[in-house]
């Protein structure tokens, strides 16, 4: 196969790529041309004399900036302090954005060294020794409501996970927690079981960067179980697997209750995120009569035996192919067993 055929841009057809690009650019241009009422934007935090990147930062950047000092400096030690200018927090035209003191406190005692020659810490230091609730006050005074509505009752808030445990405020424009390609580095910092599961052969495309933890979970708290974005496991799954929502003419009971009865969304060794290989998974509920009593076996060759095929190929779903539910009205008992 030639290079041209293999190049992804040609592989799917040039039109396939051009369409979304063109649509994006056209729509983008259209919207960009809309008149903007600048008066709706909160009053600006314009920089004052002596300020470097944030309003009133002059008293801080006098030390936390080494542009005039050629020796090893604080800028080398903490180069990201000024990079807040690249972020939403550094958009001084938005009057809601903070000053240094809004988050770190006025910190007047920090401005000069004490009798012992040491400089006291700022009023609010984001260190491991600072209680999470005190650190979070700097954030939650603005970031409340909306997606943060349930923060106060969330598992993270009540386990001492501070906002800055995950978010890098002085980032260089890409906060790892908000970038879907790097988000798992943050989440797996604590969630080791999920890291192990994501490494299994069957997984959602999270390691490939096509999904992120936050596609299903709201780490700021939610009304759903396990901080899921929706009110239940199934409602969360239906965001992408809408065809499973049903209802079906023939419902399979566990499907209607909770997808996680059979699937582990983070990853499994069995195919299709199934928690166990078939027929064992099915035999957790169905093992007492007919071919459901079968033992697992690897066949020596071709077979049409229902009882022998439960562990090979698609397992029980070789025949029960519509296992999530069927819509047939055929007057035949097999349709109620998800075979049509």
């Amino acid at each position, binding site marked *: 196969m030639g290079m041209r055929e293999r190049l992804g841009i040609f592989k799917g057809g040039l039109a396939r790529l051009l369409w979304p690009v063109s649509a994006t650019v056209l729509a983008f241009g259209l919207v960009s041309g809309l008149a903007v009422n600048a008066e709706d934007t909160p009053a600006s935090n314009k920089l004052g004399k002596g300020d470097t990147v944030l309003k009133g930062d002059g008293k801080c950047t006098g030390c936390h900036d080494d542009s005039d000092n050629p020796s090893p400096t604080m800028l080398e030690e903490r180069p990201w302090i000024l990079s807040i200018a690249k972020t939403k927090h550094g958009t001084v035209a938005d009057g809601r954005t903070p000053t240094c003191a809004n988050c770190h406190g006025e910190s007047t005692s920090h401005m000069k060294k004490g009798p012992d020659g040491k400089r006291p810490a700022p009023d609010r230091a984001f260190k491991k020794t600072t209680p999470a609730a005190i650190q979070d006050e700097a954030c939650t005074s603005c970031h409340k409501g909306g997606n943060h*509505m349930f923060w106060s009752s969330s598992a993270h808030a009540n386990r001492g996970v501070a906002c800055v445990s995950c978010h890098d405020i002085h980032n*260089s424009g890409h906060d790892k927690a908000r970038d879907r390609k790097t988000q798992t580095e*943050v989440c797996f910092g604590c969630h080791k079981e999920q890291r192990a599961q994501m490494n299994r052969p069957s997984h959602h495309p999270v390691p490939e960067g096509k999904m992120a933890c936050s596609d299903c979970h709201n780490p700021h708290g939610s009304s759903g179980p396990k901080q899921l974005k929706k009110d239940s496991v199934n409602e969360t799954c239906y965001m992408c697997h809408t065809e499973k929502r049903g209802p079906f003419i023939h419902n399979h009971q566990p499907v209607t209750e909770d997808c996680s009865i059979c699937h582990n969304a983070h990853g499994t060794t069995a195919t299709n995120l199934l928690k166990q290989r078939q027929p064992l998974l099915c035999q957790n509920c169905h093992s007492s009569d007919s071919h459901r009593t079968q033992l697992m076996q690897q066949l020596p060759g071709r077979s049409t035996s229902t009882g022998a095929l439960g562990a090979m190929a698609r397992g029980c779903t070789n025949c029960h192919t519509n296992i999530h539910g069927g819509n047939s009205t055929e007057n035949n008992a097999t349709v109620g067993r998800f075979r049509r």
Partner: protein
Amino acid sequence: MSCTKKRFELTALATALMVVYAPAMAADKDLELISKISSSVSVGVGYWNNDRPQMGIFDGMRDDGAYLLLDADIISRNDDTGTWTSLSTTNLGLDSREINAEYNVQGNWGVTLDYNQTPREAPYTVNTSLIGLGTQEQVVGPAIATGALTGANVQLGTERQKYGLGFYKNLNFLMPGLAFKANYSHENKEGNRHWGRGGAAEFAVEPIDYTTRQFEAIFDYTSKLLQLSGGYIGSWFENANDLVCSRTAAQTCGAVGPFYLTLPFDNQAHQAYVSGAYHFTPTMTGTFKASYTHATVDEAVPTAGIAAIPRYVGAPTVFDAEVNTTLVQLGLTAHPMPKLNMVANLRYHDVNDETPRYDLIGTNPAGPVTGHGTPLSYTTKSGKLEGTYSLQQGYSLVAGIDYSDQERTVPVGSTAIPDSERYVPFRADLDEITYRLQLRKSLSETLNGSLAYLYSDRDGSSFAAGRNAAVDQIAPLHIADRERNKIRLTADWAPTEALGVQLNLETSRDEYGMSAARPHGVHEGEANVYSLDVSYRLNEAWQVSAWYSHDTNEIYQTGRGPGGAGIKDASQDDTGNAVGLNLAGTINSRLKVGADVSWVKEESSIIQTWTAGAVTQVPDITSTATRIKLFGEYALNKNADLRIDLIHERWKSDDWTWFFSDGSNFQYGTATDGTAVIVDPKQNTTFAGIRYIYKFR
């Protein structure tokens, strides 16, 4: 630990930048590098030397050959108006491409546009003579002889293409703190999924041609004390196909003979909700949410429109289904004492399936009816109370209790006892209570961690009997009595600024309540996860991090033996071991390099016994995935880098799902078309890629 790593990366970056450009740069230039928004475009080409059926399921590079590597991250901000304009593309040259565009006046209004393409390729090849893949009429082809592989090689898979549009506007001119946002997405999913004909085990393909549209319009109100959010969320699913006629060459669709396989109906759901938080005092916050969801299906039943398909006279010709879901949740967080934090939640969740209980299977014209529809409803009332008390020296104690009380539908098929339509026993009520206790050590610069213990107990009402005495001997997994014990230990040790160590130990054990009358089902399960992460900064230019993870999962079940003779049992034991290693640093002022190694080994073992006969054990399965990634990035000048990536992957598995015991490919039975499935158990591939990265401000 993340702070250390972050700090290292930025330090290394700043150091490299300063060394490279220091002679030519003024102090203002330093400031610009660090504080001005930058953009980049990278273009290059990469080459895989072999197919990657297992490792390339999702990334759009399954096949060997060359690929265009094209990414862009273009972003600008007008500092005077706070207006952001950005265009970000990822994998533009691959079938896994993403495009995100955003224009917003920060704090005022904004709009986003997204495109996201996701492939999913089956990790095997199908050799088949089936005619009509991807269509609603599939014809069984000429029989393929054993081992002949004379059919066509088919690659099954699906692809999603999703378009999104978002809009945000503050409505301060109406009321300070009020904002509106709306999002719309349109997704097409197309392809073919491995399916069955529904008779004996025979190959068929489910044609996938789905369209899912979702829309939400939300008003948010935020003030110092009160926050409210409310709106509408709609979701529409459309399936271009509704029925597959799977026939032989001699049969005719619409006549007696073919298998008629149904597909999911179109469905839709509409939700209205309101949620809120109110800060009664600086130390007490109340939250609530109320939502109502109305989900429906209203579709003509395709099997009712084909005269040749036998149908009970009372079965529906139009399926009119309705599920209404109500959620009411109240929460309270408070600090009644300086050292005590309390969280309380009450929740009512009602999923009410109001679909008629249709007659589906029976003797025409007057019955009896032996098969009914099964609308299933669940009402769950749950509560949570948790307290955290701060002790001395950074210790705190967390104690909590969760309670859940669920009412569940017990389907009633017939008035006979036992009910001939009840294929498993059901329960009308299910209760679970969970106690949690955790001791946490925090607020230390060097050592933090926690030790947590969880105990839960689930039981419920008596079982409504299954359809016969044999079926009634099992307690289904998800409604069986269960006791769960779980312990988790975490420790985060950072003895120096350069070194960070994380230890995580988790173990949990489930024991299911069996009885003499109901001895079958899952008896016990156990899961363990142990992991160790170490990060070390060698010097200002180099950092290494490594982790090891070991996990085991065991489950033990019993059931009636084959033919109803004796008792069989099975235990499945899965063990995973994984290692990760990352090394990154700067060789000199212009050259950055890095290496990332991952190795994962998954082992699965199943042991079966049977009291009434001999058992031939199934082989253990071991799968190993290794990936070695190397990169080097060379600064050509201050605006351009050259990056080289090298990746080597190895996948090896003896999973016999698609192999007979003599090692030959799985092939459907001798009475079928002889479709075979071909899996490559050893996959070794290497990738080389080169990119030119242009950076600008």
